């Protein structure tokens, strides 16, 4: 495969990985208040996305792919709300272990990396365009 075509493929794998990351972030953000419904039930658990470098044999370079989405083992937030349906015998409700600030930072990072990959695509495209320009009658 031509190196520039490979570049486009790698960049698209990067775009793909970062958009999956953004999907996980939005899932976490949407569920910041998702508690259980029965007494002492577990709330939503924060999800973590893992990336893996992977050698694509048809391209011969490292592309990136989503390895797996795992659960965050951090402890849940306990809030004293005796009237809540999910409250345990002591009146504590388990809230998800999602920190909005961390999610925001993660979102920004995903955004930056997405932009970087997009820039790679633009540059590779312009290189292909200049090469094709050679064919134009001058």
């Amino acid at each position: 495969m031509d190196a520039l075509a490979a570049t486009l493929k790698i960049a698209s794998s990067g775009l793909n990985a970062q958009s999956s990351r953004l999907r996980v972030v939005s899932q976490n953000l949407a569920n910041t208040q998702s508690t259980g419904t029965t007494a002492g039930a577990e709330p939503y658990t924060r999800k973590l996305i893992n990336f893996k470098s992977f050698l694509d044999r048809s391209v011969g370079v490292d592309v990136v792919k989503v390895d797996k989405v795992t659960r965050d083992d951090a402890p849940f937030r306990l809030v004293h709300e005796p009237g809540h349906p999910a409250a345990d015998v002591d009146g504590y409700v388990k809230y998800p272990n999602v920190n909005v600030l961390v999610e925001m930072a993660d979102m920004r990072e995903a955004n930056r990396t997405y932009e970087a990959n997009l820039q790679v695509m633009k540059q590779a495209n312009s290189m292909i365009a200049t090469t094709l320009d050679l064919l134009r009658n001058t």
Partner: protein
Amino acid sequence: MGPVHLFELVSQRNEWLSVRQSVTAGNIANANTPGFKSKDVIPFEAVLNRAHLEQAMTQRGHLRAGMSGVVDTSAKAADGLVHHSGNSVSLEKEMLKLGEASRDHRLATSVLKSFHRMLLSTTRG
């Protein structure tokens, strides 16, 4: 005046630049992969000077020949920052390399174009 191997030189240069671009793209795509070591290519001069045997590509699944062995995988942690996750990609540095390769490619192509125009004007008379 000796012969000028300009066309060959330019196409070699552009091939090298394309390989560099794809290696940079790989680094940027893996900017958030834990344990990924940033890669680069060997300098163009070194590519020109080396004499090597090339591996034949007899099947689609074989790794790319041509500019094979150009990728320099030696980890350069000394001049860059290594993240806690073991990732040594610096996004700024990669973007810089990206722009540089693109600019050099445009330069080489323009040189080729003007040389081609000169050649054409000689043949047309």
